[in-house]
């Protein structure tokens, strides 16, 4: 009498199998989603790292360029500030510059930066006691400050911005600035 009753309760029912399969599927899909999200994140990080390397490279190239060349780009453009989206000499710029598998938007802005040196001094003359080798005899006078801008600009501000493009997400743009002074003339 007992045997048939036990047989009825032993084993796994179809409902239990389906439920277990449903839980497994949910967990597997969630895990796949997390891994895919992580992979995307790693990819974004890689592109950000590469964007920073490009940023350093372009700024170094601009820093190595003579002031006169940089100034001539602005003279050709007929302005004191210009965003360049195409390559300048051997500095590769563009809206979609391909480097290995990834693409980047690399732009550079050149600007004749106004600078002022306003606390200048000079020796006061006539000074009968003046002796070049003896500072105790020197007399100093304030003199007018000097501003360098537009046509007389002596400093060019270089702004480089790099943004990974063509990815699945809108990625962060990285930018940095430096100043190139006229040390040649």
């Amino acid at each position: 009498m007992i045997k048939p009753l036990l047989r009825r309760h032993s084993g796994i029912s179809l409902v239990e199998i389906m439920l277990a399969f449903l839980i497994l599927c949910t967990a597997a899909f969630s895990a796949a989603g997390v891994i895919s999200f992580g992979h995307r994140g790693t990819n974004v990080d890689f592109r950000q790292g590469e964007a920073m390397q490009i940023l350093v490279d372009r700024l170094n190239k601009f820093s190595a360029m003579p002031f006169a060349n940089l100034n001539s780009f602005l003279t050709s453009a007929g302005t004191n500030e210009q965003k360049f989206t195409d390559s300048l000499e051997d500095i590769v710029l563009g809206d979609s510059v391909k480097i290995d598998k990834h693409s980047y938007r690399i732009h550079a802005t050149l600007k004749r930066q106004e600078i002022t040196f306003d606390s200048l001094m000079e020796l006061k003359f006539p000074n009968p006691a003046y002796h070049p080798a003896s500072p105790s005899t020197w007399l100093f006078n304030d003199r007018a400050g000097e501003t360098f801008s537009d046509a007389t600009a002596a400093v060019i501000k270089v702004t480089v911005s790099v943004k990974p493009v063509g990815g699945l997400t809108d990625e962060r743009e990285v930018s940095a600035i430096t100043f190139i002074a006229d040390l040649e003339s």
Partner: protein
Amino acid sequence: MVVLSIASILLLLGVAYLKSFSQSTVTGKLQLDQIQADFFAKGIQNIALYKIKRYPDFFLRAYRYMIYQKRLAAGDTAVDSPIETPTIPPFEKFTGIYAGHPRDILNHLPDSDDKQTGFTEPLKIATWSTQFMLLSANDFNRGFIEIVVNLQLEGKTTVGTYRMSLDASQTARL
């Protein structure tokens, strides 16, 4: 039970993975700050160098006068008293760091001036300053100009120091 265990392990692995790459984004921001500070400081050094090149006489005389004043203050009997003492030492005038002079391109600009000229844009720089030094190696007839830029980014407590050194032959003793 088995299914739940596997699901839990997968979840834990996923969380650990997410945590690992979320940390690397912070590192990326720090790297960018470093790059921005490096190139800005390099630019300030270029402007400082331009100032020396533009006013070499003022730089050398002001520096030499500062050394003379230090010797005088130290009680050096070999130096004479000045025939007239400037109100503001000439070297402080050259560096631009003296009381009552809040605006100097090499030593921080007020926000209004910065916005108007777009000098630091798009960076967020809290403050910066520039020091000049002239060092002599008399035995070798060499002189060294040192330009030191101190820089602090907005929201950071660390002050970065960037040193540039140039050497040249020396024709007179300071």
